């Protein structure tokens, strides 16, 4: 178990995977409760297009991809608020168009074929110290934003329009959340890849929701579950030599299955005990009469 820890790249990857897992778990709570679970998948595709475009235009990758992701998230929010288009359709249109732009640029310029696989499926080996710094910075910013904006975010997630009637500046809250989401996805791309980010954003909060009815506990559990899946997934990827993104998601899916089975079994046992108890009381009443 301690063998991989002798490698510097693995230790760096371990820190990154744990942080990214926790970060996706944190932001994922708001995504899942807003019923926009597909946005993680869609934005990852959009940001891919933004990252490629930034590379072609020689713009700083983090900044370019984050801005592109932020603009995409705002476009999705705007389109989803219009009654004629559903949120999922809006996400599909905006994000696949961005992804297509990225693919078109890659096929046109043909200079980064190697990184294409890493971008799609994740490659922990490619994590640099700059990536680590970026992830730590985004984690701190996310924690601060969610701490300061806790009340605003809770109300807008529960009832976005009604929150506005109560004086919450919902356009600003949505903008801040979109920017944060874009930043989280940008820093998570290298670890998880475009195709796996959606699962890392959705599975931990869904598992947390199975375990608790409390919003605060759901936040904490989702971060812990996300972090542990990141950690576990990286270990698995080292030993069985698969992409880091795939192994993180597989571990997350396994956790989901185990928790779902456990909670379902617990409910059935409780129902069965309640039925037996009611039957016993009814039998006692019949005996009396």
């Amino acid at each position, binding site marked *: 178990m301690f063998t991989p820890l002798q490698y510097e790249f693995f230790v760096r990857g371990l820190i990154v995977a744990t942080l990214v897992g926790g970060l996706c778990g944190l932001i994922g709570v708001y995504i899942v409760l807003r019923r926009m679970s597909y946005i993680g998948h869609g934005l990852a595709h959009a940001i891919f297009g933004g990252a490629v475009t930034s590379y072609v235009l020689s713009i700083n990758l983090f900044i370019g991809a984050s801005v592109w992701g932020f603009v995409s998230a705002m476009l999705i929010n705007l389109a989803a608020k219009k009654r004629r288009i559903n949120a999922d359709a809006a996400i599909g249109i905006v994000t696949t168009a961005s992804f297509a732009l990225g693919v078109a640029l890659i096929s046109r310029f043909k200079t980064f074929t190697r990184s294409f696989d890493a971008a799609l499926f994740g490659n922990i080996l490619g994590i640099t110290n700059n990536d680590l710094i970026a992830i730590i910075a985004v984690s701190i910013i996310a924690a601060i934003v969610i701490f*300061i904006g806790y009340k605003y975010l*809770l109300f807008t997630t*529960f*009832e976005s329009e*009604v929150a506005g*009637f*109560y004086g*919450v500046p919902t356009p600003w809250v949505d903008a801040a959340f979109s920017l944060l989401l874009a930043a989280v996805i940008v820093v998570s791309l290298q670890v998880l890849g475009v195709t796996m980010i959606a699962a890392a954003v959705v599975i931990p909060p869904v598992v947390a*929701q199975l375990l608790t*009815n409390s919003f605060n506990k759901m936040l904490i559990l989702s971060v812990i579950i996300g972090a542990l899946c990141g950690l576990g997934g990286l270990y698995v990827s080292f030993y069985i030599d698969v992409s880091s993104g795939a192994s993180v998601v597989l571990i997350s899916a396994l956790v989901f299955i185990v928790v779902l089975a456990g909670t379902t079994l617990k409910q059935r046992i409780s129902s069965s005990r309640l039925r037996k108890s009611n039957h016993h009381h009814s039998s006692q009443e019949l005996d009396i009469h």
Partner: protein
Amino acid sequence: MLHPTPHEYERTESIVEIGNVTCGYDGSPVLKNISLTINRGDFVGLLGPSGSGKTTLLRTILGAVDIYEGEVSVEGNQVSGRKRRIGYVPQLETIDWNFPITVEQLVMMGRTSKRWWTPWYQANDRELGYHMMERLGISDIAGRHIREISGGQQQRAFLARALVSSPKLLLLDEPTSGVDIKTRDEVMHLLDDLNHQDVTVIMTTHEINAVAAHLPRVVCVNGEIVDDGAPNDIFTPDVLKRTYNADILVTEYMGMKLVAESPHFFGQKDHDH
């Protein structure tokens, strides 16, 4: 039976002014050329069938619809797209009951804008929230999840949220929809008590006999304002036909107008044996 008592003071100070307004969503007008004045202390029911625009009228006061013509002002200030701080209780059918919050967390959302930059509430906010929950008889269920309480308790929880910031104007969208008769009476008596404490109440309803007939003032809506006044004055077959696009019989019992909403019999007739 609820008999609203008129207020003792003169209600001439207007709190809501809607002047020749045409409004709707995404370029499609829902309400055309409507004018309405609500005075401080009024208790008004917006009555109409589904799709008549009564919710749109409520949302017009909230500043949540596109206004194509005319002006809307609340407490003397234009709304025109800006959302006003008014107590608002949404339709319970629109709520996500699986959202992981307790009754207390829901009520405290009414104090969100106060010192918003801290995740915790100040002591006086907590006191106000607790006082409101006690007043509405839900303090003993404060720690329960919102889906684990009855329909009447849910309605009171949302009402507590709306009232915790002491609004002068309370808007409610179908507050008696989907609740039983006892709960409906409790909610209406509660609103009546609030109205007597100088809260202006505007609510939408589609229930004529059960709710609208008991209110001091009703505005009949069907794409426009069909009529506006006391139920005993405006509940005529002609007004109700224009509001509901259906023949409705009107009669009277103990000084109150009663309507037969569907004067038809359905099902197979009994055969003589």
